[in-house]
């Protein structure tokens, strides 16, 4: 008799152990199936792999309106990160309620996420998996890349906080583990310093001197990384620099009657971002004021179109002529306004007698036919900020994670009008439970009627009991 009891306890103990093991295993590797429409809440395999490399405390602060649905979604997404790696700690901070905190972190927009790891900081432009994982990847790389910004040809200044300045861009760079450094190749020995991970030519207002062009050419040939933002309005001709890499500058003014900001056809909203290039990732539209056209030699497989305007757009080669309508001489669109070249080649060098080394040299080039979209006045419009950050990251090999990024849950509006509220309450609070109770009462009545037929042996309800029943009714 005692034996079977002992056996039961043993079985219970075994089952308990199995439960603990099972739960620990499930906690450690937690595969999940996402059935939500946008698959908003699953972390990709890439993120999972990436997170195994986090081995120090990693703090994530999402600046969001507290208590709103975005904050709830962000909390859930960030909790998924923490589940995968317990070094990760996260919080959601309302920048309105915590202006000091927002200032300390240099927050300028809602939904900014700040990630800190081993004394370094990176911001993610949105609370979405792709952005956060990319930011973590950058933190894990652990370097701060020097980005050299060219001056000397009338480019806007990184320290200018006016609408035409680039101070916001400078902050953006430093917040993403880049150290911006200005260089002037118009003076002295024109050569790009080896420390530069990338060189940015952000809107020159006059033609570059030949020495500078030569320096940049040689830099590009040696595996350089260059971004050129220019416009026909500035009167520069970047073609000598660009054409060897399959990109040509057409100039003129692109007008887009179909997609433009307000009534100004030259304030173009770019929505065709067809490239798989990481520069386009997460960017659905751009605002380019007064863009110029580019020509892309697509026969060269290394060149890709980053952005082009709508089919209704066209290039007006001579904007000063007065008429903005499509006329003779205008080039019909769609017009390429941003392009990238990625050329790599194997270089064999002789390091000594009998010793040869082989390495891959990779030139990357981003060209945009507009030189004002990244200034303080436009950086936060549409996807401009993201596009610029992507471009710098791509140029410096800080590729973003190419993941099937999760999207936020879609907007499913259902205005709760008082009438609807009344209806819902009526059905759920009164009709359904009421129907249930009526059914129960009905059944009780039927049963009672059946019992009415006198049967021997049944007690007559006592008067006391009868009274109680009546009260219940």
């Amino acid at each position: 008799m005692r034996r079977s009891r002992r056996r039961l306890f043993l079985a219970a103990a075994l089952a308990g152990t199995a439960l603990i093991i099972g739960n620990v295993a499930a906690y450690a590797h937690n595969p999940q199936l996402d059935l939500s429409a946008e698959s908003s809440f699953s972390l990709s395999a890439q993120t999972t792999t990436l997170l195994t490399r986090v081995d120090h405390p990693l703090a994530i602060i999402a600046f969001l309106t507290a208590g709103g649905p975005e904050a709830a979604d962000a909390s859930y997404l960030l909790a998924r990160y923490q589940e995968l790696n317990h070094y990760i700690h996260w919080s959601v901070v309302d920048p309105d309620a915590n202006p000091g905190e927002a200032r300390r972190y240099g927050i300028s927009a809602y939904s900014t996420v700040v990630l800190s790891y081993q004394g370094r900081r990176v911001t993610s432009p949105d609370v979405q998996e792709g952005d956060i994982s990319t930011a973590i990847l950058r933190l894990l790389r652990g370097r701060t890349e020097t980005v050299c910004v060219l001056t000397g040809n009338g480019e806007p200044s990184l320290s200018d906080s006016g609408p035409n300045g680039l101070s916001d861009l400078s902050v953006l760079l430093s917040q993403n583990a880049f150290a911006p450094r200005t260089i002037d190749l118009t003076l002295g020995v024109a050569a790009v310093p080896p420390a530069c991970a990338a060189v940015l030519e952000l809107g020159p207002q006059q033609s570059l001197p030949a020495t500078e062009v030569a320096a940049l050419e040689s830099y590009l040939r040696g595996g350089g990384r260059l971004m050129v933002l220019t416009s026909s309005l500035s009167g520069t001709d970047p073609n000598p620099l660009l054409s060897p890499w399959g990109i040509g500058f057409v100039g003129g003014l692109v007008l887009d009657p179909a997609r433009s900001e307000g009534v100004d056809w030259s304030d173009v909203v770019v929505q065709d971002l067809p490239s798989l290039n990481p520069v386009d990732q997460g960017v659905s539209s751009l605002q380019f004021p007064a863009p110029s056209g580019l020509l892309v030699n697509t026969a060269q497989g290394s060149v890709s179109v980053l952005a082009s305007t709508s089919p209704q757009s066209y290039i007006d080669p001579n904007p000063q002529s007065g008429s903005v309508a499509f006329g003779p001489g205008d080039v019909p669109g769609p017009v390429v306004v941003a392009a990238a070249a990625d050329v790599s080649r194997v270089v064999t060098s002789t390091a000594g007698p009998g010793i040869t080394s082989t390495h891959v040299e990779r030139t990357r080039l981003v060209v945009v036919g507009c030189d004002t979209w990244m200034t303080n006045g436009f950086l936060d419009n549409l996807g401009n900020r993201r596009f610029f950050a992507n471009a710098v990251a791509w140029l410096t090999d800080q590729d973003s994670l190419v993941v099937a990024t999760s999207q936020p849950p879609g907007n499913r509006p259902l205005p709760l009008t008082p009438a609807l509220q009344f209806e819902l309450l009526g059905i759920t609070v009164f009709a359904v439970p009421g129907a249930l109770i009526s059914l129960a009462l009905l059944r009780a009545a039927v049963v009672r009627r059946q019992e009415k037929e006198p049967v021997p042996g049944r007690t007559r309800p006592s008067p006391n009991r009868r009274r109680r029943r009546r009260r219940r009714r």
Partner: protein
Amino acid sequence: MSRPGRLRLVMAAGLAALASSCGSGSTPALPPPPVLVAGRPAQFDAVCVSAGDRQARLSPALVNGVAPLVAAKEFRPPEPLAEYGLAPARARLTYRPAGGAPTSLLVGGPTFDDHFIYVMHPGGQALYTVAAGQLDPVLALVGVVVPAPK
């Protein structure tokens, strides 16, 4: 029948506990925006703004912009009031209703993205944010300049 009755009590206690804490991960609906100053413009004899020793009375057009005054957000300040530009306040807005005690509001600095301005009742516990566009022209009357939204 008293047993189920007592059980309802247990259930009610559970529900009270439920009500006191919200479920995890739900999408809480944001509360409706709090009304800072109720009443239509016609109900006020005068609305005045003051900053330091400067004082001004709002024109009817400006009163239309701030009466009624509805906040975008309400919260208990987690940081010192100085962070909100409210210690000391940059300006004070006074509503004098026709026949009634005047209501005052303290106006502070802009929020992190300059789209809103912090506001509180004198001696109040809660802070509110009000759209900067509503208060900027009023503050300009007394020379308080709030940076334009970026």
